[in-house]
C-alpha cells in the first residue's frame, strides 16, 4: 500500500467546502476517485476546484480550511 499525494495546482487560499455553511467535499477517512473534488482554491478572487487526480481510500487532509497554500503544496494524502 502506497501513499498518494494530492497537491494544490495554484497558490492561494484553500477551502474544504464550497461555501461557508456547506459540508466538506471530503471528510478525513473517505475514499476518493480521480475525478472527485476535494477542495477549492481561491486565487486572486477567483475560485478553482481541486480534483483528487488519484484514487484511493482513507484521505487525510494536511491543510486546514481557509489556510494559505503554495503551488505544489501537498493538501492531502490517500492510501492507494
Amino acid at each position: 500500500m502506497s501513499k498518494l499525494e494530492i497537491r494544490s495546482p495554484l497558490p492561494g487560499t484553500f477551502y474544504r467546502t464550497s461555501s461557508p455553511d456547506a459540508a466538506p467535499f471530503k471528510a478525513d477517512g473517505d475514499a476518493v476517485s480521480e475525478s472527485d473534488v476535494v477542495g477549492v482554491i481561491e486565487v486572486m478572487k477567483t475560485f478553482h476546484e481541486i480534483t483528487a487526480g488519484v484514487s484511493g481510500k482513507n484521505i487525510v487532509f494536511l491543510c486546514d480550511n481557509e489556510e494559505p497554500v503554495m503551488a505544489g503544496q501537498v493538501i492531502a494524502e490517500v492510501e492507494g
Partner: protein
Amino acid sequence: MTIKSVLVANRGEIAVRIIKAAQSLGVRTVQVHSAADVDMLAVKLADEAVNIGSPAPKKSYLNIEAVISAAKAAGVDAIHPGYGFLSENGDFADAVVAAGMIFVGPSGDAIRLLGDKVAAREVAARAGVPTVPGSGGRVADLTQAHEIAARTGFPVMIKAAAGGGGRGIRIVDSLAELDKQFPLASAEAAAAFGDGGLYMEKVITKARHVEVQIFGDGENFVHFYERECSLQRRRQKVWEEAPAFQLPQVVRQKLCESAVALAREVKYKGAGTVEYLYDDSTREFYFIEVNTRIQVEHPVTEMITGFDLVQEMLKVAGGAKLSVTQDDIRPHGHAIECRINAEDPLKDFAPSPGTISRLEVPEQEGVRFDTMLYEGYTIPPFYDSLLGKLIVWGETRSECLKRLRHALDGLKIEGVPTTVPLHQALAQSAAVQTGAFHTRFLEGWLDTDFACKDKVRPEVA
C-alpha cells in the same frame, strides 16, 4: 489644508497613487498592510507602515476595528479608503468620524443612501435623471414581478437591491424563467448580502457604459466630463476611455448636467461617479448607479482635464471649497486606460501570481503608468489581479491609439503572464478603432478574433 497626515486603508496601485498625491501636498502618510503585503510598494513609499492582520481581507483590509486602531495609534487626521474594501462602507465612514478623524469621502449617510440601488434610483428620479424602465423600487412578490415584466418586456434583469460588482444579477427571457429565477435570486441575495430584496430592470441590449465623474464640496458641484467603460469581461472593466466615443455634444451636455443635478440633490461631498447605460440607436441614456469613491479609471479623466482628483479629494475632505468651477474644466484630447492584470489571456485568464523578474516602463510623451510593481516583487495570490494601469493621452483618439500601441510594445513585464497581449490585440483591432462598443462586445470578440493566436504577440513565454 487641515489634513496633515493620512492613513491609507487599501493596497496595490491605488495605495501608491494616494501616497504620491498626499506627499505632493506635504501630507504625512501611514500605510496599513496585511501580513502578505509587507513587501508592497506602498509600504516602501509611505512615511510609516502598520501590519494590521493576516492575509485574508476580512482579517486585515476589511477589519474596521484594526484599521481604526492603527489610525489612532499613528495619530493621523484622516483615512483615505481608496476603492473596493471599505471604501463604500457607510459604517466605516461613521466609525472614522466617531474616532475623531476625517473620512476622505462622502458621509456614511450618503454612502448608504447611494449604495442602496433602489434608494439611489429614487434619488436619480427626483433629480430628473432618466432611469432604466423597471420596478422603480423593490419588487414585493412574484405577482408584481409579472406586472413589471409585462410593462417592460423581455429580456428583463433581476438584481439584488444590495448587490454590487456584477453579483446577484439574472437575466430572464420568459415568464417561465422569471417564475423559476425570482425565488432563487431572492434566496441568493439573502445569503450573499443579508437582504433578499430584489428589483427589476429592462435589459438594454447593445448598451454602452458611460459614466460621469462628479465632485462636490457639499455646496458646490461640478462634473469632470464622462468616461466610456464599455469593454468589459464578466462585468469587470478592461479598457476605459475619455471622452466617450462619438457621443453627440448635446447628449454629452445633458448627461453631465444630469449627474451634477444628482450630486446637488444629495449635497455630495468628495469624488463620485454616476454610471449610465447609453443606447446609441435611440440616443437615450439611463441612470444605473452611483459609486461613492474614487474609481480605478479616474486617470483618463485626469489626463483630459489636467486635474489631480486624489489631491482634490484630500483638499475637500480637509474642509476646503472646490478649487475649480465648471468653467475651469475644459477637456482636451483623448485618453485610454488599459488595466494590466496578472492573468493569462491565452489560458482563459487564469490568475497568475508570482515574482516580477523584469519591469520596463515606456518613457514617452502622454504616457502614465500607475502601478504597484517593481522588479523582484512577488504578487500575493490573496487579492485582486490588477497590477497597474497604462494610461495614454493624445490630441485625437487615433493619435492616442497610435501612442498606446507604441507604449504597450515598450511595457515589459516579465515573470508572470499578464493581460498586455490582450491590450496589444485590442489596440490593433478594427473593432476598437471604429468604436464598435457595447458592454457585451468583448466576450464575443475574445471567442472569435482573439482566438486567432497569430494576431497576438505574447510578451511572456
